[in-house]
Structure formats: structure tokens, C-alpha cells
């Protein structure tokens, strides 16, 4: 389907948009799967299914968007060319170019990472230069998908706004998922929910995306939908992964798990996201500083109340079941009472001052998010 046709028939989703959304989903699913793989089995090769899911995201995005820009440039109609941006003489939608950039970054990270393993050892640290390039790559694909559906939404008629709006929320949900993954050490486990750092990291990271999408999406409850998409992805992964039998293959094995270790239960971002949606609905464009101020403070306040008590629930026996999937630990963990306790509450307790810092970070995050959202709201190509 051509770009021009896509504009006319806005209720339908062009094939390349579908391909890119699938690619972004595949990449984030692959990352969650890979983390579970490392927590359960321990060893891996390039050819694990989790890695394949990540690289399938890269390959699909690169191939679909590469084909799109070549077709648009070489054989596209004037309308199709007009709907793209110029990149070294080629024409294509901005989202496609961002995704292509991400795919090439992923491609580059492969041999670099292989050399890195041979030179410095197998994943001595998760955070390494080739892994950062890989992360930039799949984040590029996810951003590309978001930009593409955003421009589609912005050009869509009334009939297509709901579908494209939901796609925008889903794309943003993938980004939120990405952030949650990157903050796995600080904000993933409920045991950290009584630490100051937990609220600072969450305050700095999440308002950015949530308020940006609330501003850019034409859904009324866009931030809530975004948080719901993140929640849905997490729950599906929790429920599916723990169905698969697996055994550790790397020493030392102190916790002989028998099934894939599920990721931690997701944050209940839907609650503060709904609060942000209400604020965005109340204050439209033109009052962004005020919106950022109230949005940031509101986010931290609602997030704090929600997570503080919900984390307490997650540490109770009532949450130790299939549906919540908690109390699942790495094969190398010496599982003791610490798993039911709040960690580091003496070193880093939650105090009003720390919540204040978290709120300040959230205000900054929300203000940047509004700039970003305003730009996305104007995205046409």
C-alpha cells in the first residue's frame, strides 16, 4: 500500500506500519525473554530464541523500512515522495529512517559484541559499549515505530484516529516497557519500593513518555492507554514465560528453578497515568509550565501512594501465585528471607526530602515530555 493510499484510507494500517509495530514488539519481547533466559538458564549463544526475537525486530524493521524508502525514492508517486523527508537524496517517512538507523545500529552491535566477548570475556557486565549500541538500535526501532504511527495519526481523518491513537499508545507503551527494563535494578522489584531511589528514578523516567503521549495522541486517555499497554505486555510475558520448563546450565546453581523465571510484576503506572491524562485534559497547550509543575508533583504523589502499598501486597503470600508471578528468583540466588523483605530501608529510606527531589525530577521530566509531545503532535511525515 502506498503512502498516498494510506492517507486516503486512514482506517487501514499500511503494511509497513504494521511491520514496524511488530518489529518493535518483537524486540521488546525478546529483551524481556532474554533477561528471563539469563535468570533461568544462565548461558546462551547468539542463536537463542530470545536473541532471535530481538534480531527479528531489527531485520523486519530494516527490511520493511528499507524497502519503503527505496520504493518511495525510485518508484514513488510525487505524493508519496512529498510525504517523506530527505535523507542523503532518498525520501521516506521520518519514522522509517529512525528505524533504519536502529536496524543498522543493531547490525553493527553484533560483530562488535562478538569481538568484545572474545577480548574481555562473556558479558562480564551487562552494560558494555556493544550492548549500549544494541540498546540504541532497538530503541531506534521502537522510536521509529512511534513516529510512524504518530505521523499516521496526525494525518488521519476522524475515522482513523482511534486506531492510530491506540497504535501511538501501544508504541509509547513499548518505550515505557523499555525504560522499566533499563531500570530493572532500581524499580523492578517490589522490595525496592520503600527506597528513595525508587521514586527518584520513576519520577525522572516515566512522566517524560506518559505526558508526551498524552499531549501527542488524540486519545482522551492516552497516557492511561500507554500504561495499560506496558502492563499488558508485562503480564503476558509473566504468564507465558513461567509455563515453559527450563533448568539452569551455569554454575553456581543455588536456586534450582524448573521453569523460566518470570519478570517482576509491573508497576501500576495506570493510576498516575490516569491522573496525568486528567491534568492534560484540563490544561491544554499554552500552559505547559503549569502542566509540567502539577503533572510532575501529581505523578510522584499518586505513584508513591499506589506503589508503596501495592509493593507491600506483592511481598505477601497472597501474591505468590501464577497471576502475580512474584517470588521467582535467579538460579544463582541464595533464596532466603530477604525475598520477602524491603531492601536497604536503613540505607535509603523514603523521606519527604527524597520525595521532593523525586517530584522535582518528575517536573523536569514532564516539561521535556511536553516539548517532545508538542513536536510529535505536529509530526506530519
Amino acid at each position, binding site marked *: 500500500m502506498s503512502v498516498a493510499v494510506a492517507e486516503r484510507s486512514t482506517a487501514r494500517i499500511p503494511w509497513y506500519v504494521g511491520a514496524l509495530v511488530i518489529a518493535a514488539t518483537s524486540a521488546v519481547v525478546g529483551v524481556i525473554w532474554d533477561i528471563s533466559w539469563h535468570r533461568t538458564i544462565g548461558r546462551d549463544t547468539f542463536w537463542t530464541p530470545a536473541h532471535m526475537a530481538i534480531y527479528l525486530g531489527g531485520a523486519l524493521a530494516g527490511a520493511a523500512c528499507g524497502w519503503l524508502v527505496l520504493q518511495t525514492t525510485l518508484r514513488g508517486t510525487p505524493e508519496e515522495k512529498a510525504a517523506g523527508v530527505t535523507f542523503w537524496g532518498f525520501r521516506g517517512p521520518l519514522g522509517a529512517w529512525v528505524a533504519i*538507523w536502529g536496524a543498522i545500529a543493531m547490525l*553493527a552491535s553484533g560483530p562488535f559484541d562478538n569481538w568484545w566477548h572474545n577480548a*574481555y570475556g562473556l558479558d562480564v557486565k551487562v552494560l558494555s559499549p556493544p550492548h549500549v549500541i544494541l540498546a540504541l538500535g532497538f530503541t531506534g526501532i521502537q522510536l521509529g515505530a512511534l513516529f510512524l504511527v504518530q505521523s499516521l495519526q496526525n494525518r488521519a481523518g476522524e475515522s482513523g484516529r482511534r486506531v492510530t491513537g491506540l497504535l501511538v499508545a501501544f508504541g509509547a507503551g513499548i518505550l515505557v516497557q523499555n525504560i522499566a527494563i533499563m531500570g530493572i535494578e532500581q524499580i523492578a522489584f517490589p522490595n525496592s519500593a520503600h527506597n528513595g531511589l525508587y521514586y527518584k528514578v520513576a519520577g525522572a523516567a516515566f512522566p517524560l513518555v506518559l505526558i508526551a503521549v498524552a499531549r501527542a495522541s488524540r486519545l482522551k486517555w492516552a497516557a492511561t492507554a500507554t500504561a495499560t499497554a506496558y502492563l499488558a505486555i508485562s503480564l503476558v510475558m509473566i504468564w507465558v514465560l513461567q509455563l515453559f520448563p527450563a533448568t539452569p546450565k551455569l554454575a553456581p546453581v543455588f536456586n534450582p528453578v524448573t521453569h523460566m523465571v518470570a519478570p517482576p510484576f509491573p508497576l501500576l503506572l495506570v493510576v498516575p497515568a490516569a491522573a496525568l491524562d486528567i491534568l492534560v485534559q484540563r490544561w491544554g497547550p499554552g500552559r505547559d509550565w503549569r502542566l509540567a509543575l502539577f503533572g510532575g508533583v501529581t505523578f510522584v504523589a499518586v505513584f508513591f501512594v499506589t506503589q508503596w502499598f501495592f509493593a507491600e501486597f506483592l511481598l505477601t503470600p497472597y501474591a505468590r501465585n501464577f497471576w502475580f508471578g512474584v517470588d521467582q528468583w535467579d538460579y544463582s540466588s541464595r533464596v532466603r528471607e530477604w525475598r520477602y523483605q524491603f531492601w536497604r530501608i536503613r540505607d535509603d529510606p523514603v523521606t519527604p526530602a527524597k520525595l521532593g527531589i523525586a517530584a522535582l525530577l518528575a517536573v523536569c521530566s514532564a516539561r521535556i515530555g511536553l516539548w517532545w509531545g508538542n513536536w510529535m503532535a505536529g509530526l506530519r511525515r
Partner: protein
Amino acid sequence: MTGRAGRLAAVGIIALIASAHVGSPDTYFEGAAGPYPVRVIVRSPGVVPGLAQITVRLLSPLPQGTLPRRVLVLPVYWDPQTAAPPPPDVAQHVPGDSTLYSAALWLMRGGSYSVQVTVEGAAGSGTALVPVMAVATRRLALDKALGAALLGLGVFLFAGAVTLIGAAVRESGLEPGAVPDQRRRRRSRVAMGVATVVFGLALVGGRRWWNGVDAEYRSGLFQPLHATATVRSAGGAQVLRLAIDDTSWTNPKRQWTPLVPDHGHLMHLFLVRDSTLDAFAHLHPLPLDSITFETSLPPLPRGRYRIYADIVHESGFAPTLVSSVDISSAGGSWRPSDRDDAWTTGNAQRGTGNAVALQDGSTMTWERGDTPIVVDQEAPLRFVVTDPTGRPASLEAYMGMAGHLMLTRDDGAVFVHLHPAGTVSLAAVETFALRQPGDTVRGLLGARLTAMEKRSGERGAVLDGAPPMPGVHRGESLPAPGALSFPYAFPKPGPYRLFVQVKRAGRILTGVFDAEVRPAR
């Protein structure tokens, strides 16, 4: 049979250690896994954590003439507090070779491992323990082709990212078909300039990060403990002192486990005359304390000597200390510090002869054949000793072994101490075979090992009751008539000198040979 010996009998022993050597990180072993004779090679990855490649070859004769059902391999870390191994891996058949199996070993921590090689078949099953040291020995260079490809991709990504920023600012907000005005173009150029600076700074940060990782890795490359050798005169004799003066050893809070005796000796020290390689000694210094070792020096000719000292830690870690010393005056009388001490001199000229006359009139012949010796290919290290009448000589066990082979590359970049069972330290095997879950206090296992040796009154006797390893003998006479072989492949090309030591009629004899090792094609 004692309970411990019973444990040993139940666990067949394969021992091999890659580390008691210089410039030769791979491990070679020949022995038995229960009823199955096997040869095991572990190729060191050179990095930690890393994947070591292990091959297990079943040797003839196969029990009942049948291949086993499967071969399992499992590396177990030495520390009983962390050794909680996963299930073993099934080694896969190497296509085209029915007796060869291979697998990858995940060595995730630096230190000492025992690799359990289990062979299961109709003739029963047996497990062999193969001590392997995981150490980072090298840092891989970035080859030019890969470097150029990565640089190209990097430039593309950098330029692409800047271009994307420009395109986003210039056009992405315009309705399709609209042409960007001058203001948008100017803003686009400014944005690209800012992006260039920001991305450039990110690159600089990335480079610093990479350099930091590289420096940290290089500083963590394995270095044997530092040792200093000195020679002094004492009562007309010369005494060699070797002090382990490394701060990581002398620090009271050191992480090293204590030393354990190997064949009854805490240290096996080798002297090789520098450059000419025409003087060689195999000595066993006695400990004055936990740092200092001394031995009476044989009357070696003056000159500079390379020193290699094999030690074994209680963990099974068996490094070789490297040092050098100047011997400025020829020694006088020599009273060996230990009855197993031996030395030889002469052979200044390199030779290609296959037969050398030994000090007692017997002859040692290297059956090397006509095939060139090539790097990383199994070397034909088979030797036969014949008496003056030409009949196979009757050899005795020399420190529990049929023979010892020390080989060194002329420049000293390689030094290896081999036995017929391979690059084996018996003491490392002992530490793994006797280790119990309760051995969490350092020194406990070592003290038990030493006590067992003292009780037995015989060096290397701790493993009595264990299945035999080739060339390992506790008695004084050897069943095989004067023949011995060593499983090994040379790690680097170049000229080598080999010192083969055997014992005959209570006398330690040393045969010296030269070899030229060709690079692999």
C-alpha cells in the same frame, strides 16, 4: 582401603592442568574414565568468563569393543562454598570421527576448576577429574578488517543520526508537499550543529569508557606471583634462595590458598641456562617459611639462568613462578637438598639427533618419525631407553612417574613440565579428589593431604586405590620396559629444547633433544 581411597576409587581420576606452565595455556591429559581410556584436551579461551573447548578421545582398546552411550562433561569450581554445579553437558560426536567427542565448557570465574569427564557405556561408567585453571591470559586485538568495518558503520551511524536530526527539524512537521522555508532550514542547520557536538561528546565518553574497560582488563591479566632468586655461598657450597615476594602473597589478608605438596615437594624448580640452554637442573627447594625456599645448588657453569618454579595451591591452582638468577662462580661440592634433585650440562650445539647417550651408558631414543612437528597438532613425544646392550632398560619411578619431560622454546616464551599423563599436577588431582563440602577453612585440606603423605611414607601415595593414570607409579619398578610417551601439542612455532628425565638403577638420567616446530598452515 580407606574411606577416602574408596571415594577415589569411585571417582576415576583424570588429571590435567593447564597452568603449571609458561606460554602453554591448553590442557592435555591421557588416562582412564572408569573402564574407558581417554585423551582429553581443553583449549583455554584466554579470557574469563569464557568458553573453553574440550575434546574427549576414546583410546584403544575400547572395553567390549563398543563405543559408549554418551560422554558427559562438567566443570566444577574448586570452592565448596560456591560449587553448586548445574547438570553436566553431553559432549557431541565430532562428525567423521567415531571416537572423538567435543563440548564447550563455561568457565565463568577465574581460578581453579575440576572438569568431570564421565563416560557411560555397556562396560559401565567412570568419571575422570581434570583440573583446569581459568585465567585471562590474552587480550584479543581488533583485526584491521573488523576494525575498518566497525569504523565504517560508526561513521555511517554518526552521520546518519545528525542527518536525522536535521531532517526532523527541517521537514517532519510540514504538511506533505510543503517546502521548508529559510527559517526551518536555518534551524535545521543549527540543530545539526548541536547534534554533532552532543553526539561527538557521547563518542568521546564512549571511547573513554572503552579505554577504561580495556585498562582494567589488562591489569587483570594473569600474572604469576612475583619471585626473586638469589645465590649465596655457604660452607663451600652455593645455595639458591627463591623468595615469593609478591604483595598479594605476603599480605596477611591474602586470597591465595596455601601450598600443598606435589610428589612430596612444595616446589619443583627448574634452572635453564639462558641463551645456550646447555645447562639444566630440576631441584626441590625446601621452605624456610611461607615465603622463602632454599636449595643447594649443583655445580652449574657460570651464567644467567632462567628459573621456573611449579607450585600447587590447595585450591588446585598450579601456577609456574618465573624468575632469573646470575650464577657468577662455579659451585664446589654439592650435597643435594633432596634425593630427587638432578642436573645436567653440555649440549651447547643444537642437534637433530634422535638418540642420545645417557650418563650411565644407556641410550635414550626419540621416536619422532619423519612427520614434521606442527603447532597445535599432537606431537610424537615417544621415547625409548635401552641399556648398553641395546635391550629395553628397566626404569624406576621418578617421583611417582615413569618420566618427566621439560620443554622450553629457545627464547623462554614457552616452558612446560609434562608427565606421561599429560600436563598433570598430581597434587591438583588430589585436592579435587579429596575435597569435602566441609573444607571451607583454608589450610584444612592441605594439612590433611600432607598428613596422608606422611602417614603413607611415600610421595604421591595419597591416590592409592584410585584407577591408574599412565606413567603414575607408586612402586619402585615399572611394568613397561623403558618406553614412555607424553600427550602434548606445541603452542608456538620455533626452536625448542627438550629435557627428558627418567630413573634407572637409582640414578636420575636426563636426555636432551632439540626440535623445530613449524607454524600451522
